[in-house]
C-alpha cells in the first residue's frame, strides 16, 4: 500500500521525485499517465497524495483529477499538480477539480517535503 502516487510520462521525473520521497520515509507508487493513475487509485484506496503532471498522453492530469472526484468519487486523496504550466486559467480548472496545490517544475524536494508529509498525514 503506497502513500504517494507519482504520475508523469517522464521516467526521469518519476525517478527523481520517487527517489527523493522514498529516501525521506514515504512509500511511493508510480503511474505513466492519467489513465494508469486511475487504475492505481482504483486498486489502492490507501493512497493519500497524488503528485501529477498536467501534460501527458492518453489522459492529462487535470482530466484525471476531474475523474478522481467524479467517476471514482474519491474526495479524500490530495492531488497536487507538478507541472511546467502555471496559467491562472489552468490553476482555476485545477481548483474546480479539487486539486489541493500546484508546484511549477523543476521539483525541489527539500522545499516541499514538509508540506508533502502533512498532506500524507505522516
Amino acid at each position, binding site marked *: 500500500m503506497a502513500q504517494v502516487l507519482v504520475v508523469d*510520462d*517522464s*521516467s*526521469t*521525473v518519476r525517478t*527523481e521525485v520517487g527517489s527523493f520521497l522514498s529516501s525521506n520515509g514515504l512509500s511511493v507508487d508510480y503511474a505513466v499517465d492519467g489513465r494508469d493513475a486511475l487504475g492505481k487509485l482504483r486498486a489502492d484506496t490507501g493512497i493519500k497524495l497524488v503528485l501529477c503532471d498536467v*501534460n*501527458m*498522453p492518453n489522459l492529462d492530469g487535470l482530466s484525471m483529477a476531474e475523474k478522481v472526484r467524479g467517476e471514482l468519487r474519491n474526495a479524500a486523496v490530495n492531488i*497536487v499538480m507538478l*507541472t*511546467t*504550466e*502555471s*496559467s491562472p*486559467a489552468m*490553476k482555476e480548472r*485545477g*481548483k474546480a477539480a479539487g*486539486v*489541493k*496545490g*500546484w*508546484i*511549477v*517544475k*523543476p*521539483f*525541489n524536494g527539500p*522545499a*516541499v517535503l514538509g*508540506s*508533502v508529509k502533512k498532506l500524507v498525514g505522516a
Partner: protein
Amino acid sequence: MISARARSAFDQMLATSLRSTFAGAAVAGCGPVADFAQVTERRAVMLSVSACRFRLMLFLHFDTDARTGALLARLRGQPQGAEPGAPQWLLDALSEYGNLCCGTLNRELGRVFGCLGMSTPHLVERESLRHLPLLRPGYLRHYRLDLDGGHRFHATLCVCEHGELDFVAPPAAPQAEVAGELELF
C-alpha cells in the same frame, strides 16, 4: 507576417528559457547561428506551443554520447560516473529538459497571449528539420547555447503564424514565480 519586434521578442523569450533551464551550469553564451549547417547534433527533442495566432515549435538538439550523459548527470546533481548506462535514461532526461525549457517559454508567452497549449516532448532526427521550410514559417532560426566546460547545445525555433503577428516581450516580472515550491489552494 511576423514583425521584427515580434521576432526579437521570441529570441528574448527563448534566451530566457534556455538560461533558466540550464541554470545548473554556468551559461557562457547564447545567441543565433547563421544556418542549420552549424547544428551538428544528430537528434532533437521537439515540443510545440499552440495559440490562436501561431504555432511554435522548439527543438533542442543533442547527441546521445557519454559527454552529454555526464553533463546531464552533473546538472541533476548526480556523482560523476553514476549516470545509468542505458541510452533510454539519456533520452528521457533530455526530453524532460526540453519540457522544462518549453515550459518556461510557454509561461513567457502566456504573459502576452491567452489560451496556449503545450505539447509533450517528441524525439526526432536532425534531418527531419530540413523539411521545416515546407511549413512556410514566418520565423525560423537556429541558436547556440554554450555552457561551462566547453559544452555546446543548439536549439531551433520555428514559428508559423496565422495572419499578422506583432507583439513586444513584456518586461521581466517584478516577482518571478518560484519554481519548485508548493502553492496550496
